[in-house]
């Protein structure tokens, strides 16, 4: 009987955390995807490229400006647990793939929203880098599974037609 209690004492917290990860984690992820979809629709007219050159810039408009955004997204207990198991056997870890997708979309969305606030309608030279914030410690067993991203880009205003090009055609 006592052994049973001991077992329950050891297993129950882990089960509780797994349950928390399953329900809360999934609901937070689903909400985040829905939120991303809604906000992406609002900035869908903003052209984002990762080219180093400006596509049809309006040279009369105010000079372009660099925008930067940061995002740090955490894994949940279920993802980390399943990830640890899959890490042992190898192969693709789907849980972490959606985590990275959410972080990248969020980071890009944030620079697009900043561009919208400043009245720009295009962003070029988009760079998405993973950032190091000092989470890994081999001596410490408890490591936080998370994705941190630093996104940058240059926002500018597009002109309808380049005047020089229009002259060349006629």
């Amino acid at each position, binding site marked *: 009987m006592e052994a049973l209690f001991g077992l329950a004492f050891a297993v129950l917290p882990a089960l509780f955390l797994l349950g928390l990860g399953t329900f809360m984690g999934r609901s937070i992820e689903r909400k985040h995807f829905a939120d991303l979809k809604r906000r992406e629709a609002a900035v869908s007219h903003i052209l984002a490229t990762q080219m180093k050159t400006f596509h049809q810039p309006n040279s009369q408009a105010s000079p372009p400006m660099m925008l930067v955004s940061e995002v740090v*997204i955490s894994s949940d207990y279920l993802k980390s647990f399943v990830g640890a198991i899959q890490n042992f056997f190898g192969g693709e870890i789907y849980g972490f793939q959606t985590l990275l997708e959410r972080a990248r979309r969020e980071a890009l969305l944030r620079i697009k929203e900043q561009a919208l606030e400043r009245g720009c309608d295009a962003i070029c030279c988009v760079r998405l880098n993973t950032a190091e914030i000092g989470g890994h410690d081999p001596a410490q067993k408890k490591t936080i599974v998370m994705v941190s991203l630093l996104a940058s880009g240059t926002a500018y205003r597009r002109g309808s037609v380049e005047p020089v090009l229009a002259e060349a055609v006629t």
Partner: protein
Amino acid sequence: MIVVNTDAIPGHRIVEVKGIVQGNTVRAKHAGRDIAAGLKNLVGGELKGYTELLTESRQEAVNRMLNHAQQLGANAIVSVRFTTSSITSGASELYAYGTAVTVVPEGP
């Protein structure tokens, strides 16, 4: 000061290149944020404390880069890049660098 991460600025001509300018900062996260992040790690979602930490470090690094460019007498920075590196556990460096230039607006 015009700051972009492209090589050129539309409507402007680069007349003088001053050279590389840089700014960095090393920041440590604190225990309060770690505890909050540890709890958030169970259910998932954004770690706002760490996002703020990154934002603060980035602003500091960019400010230092801007000061450096001002000392050189530049009026714009092109090709800005960011990198991060971890120094020890719990602390990391954010480094911003770019090329300081002098630009003049192009006539119509």
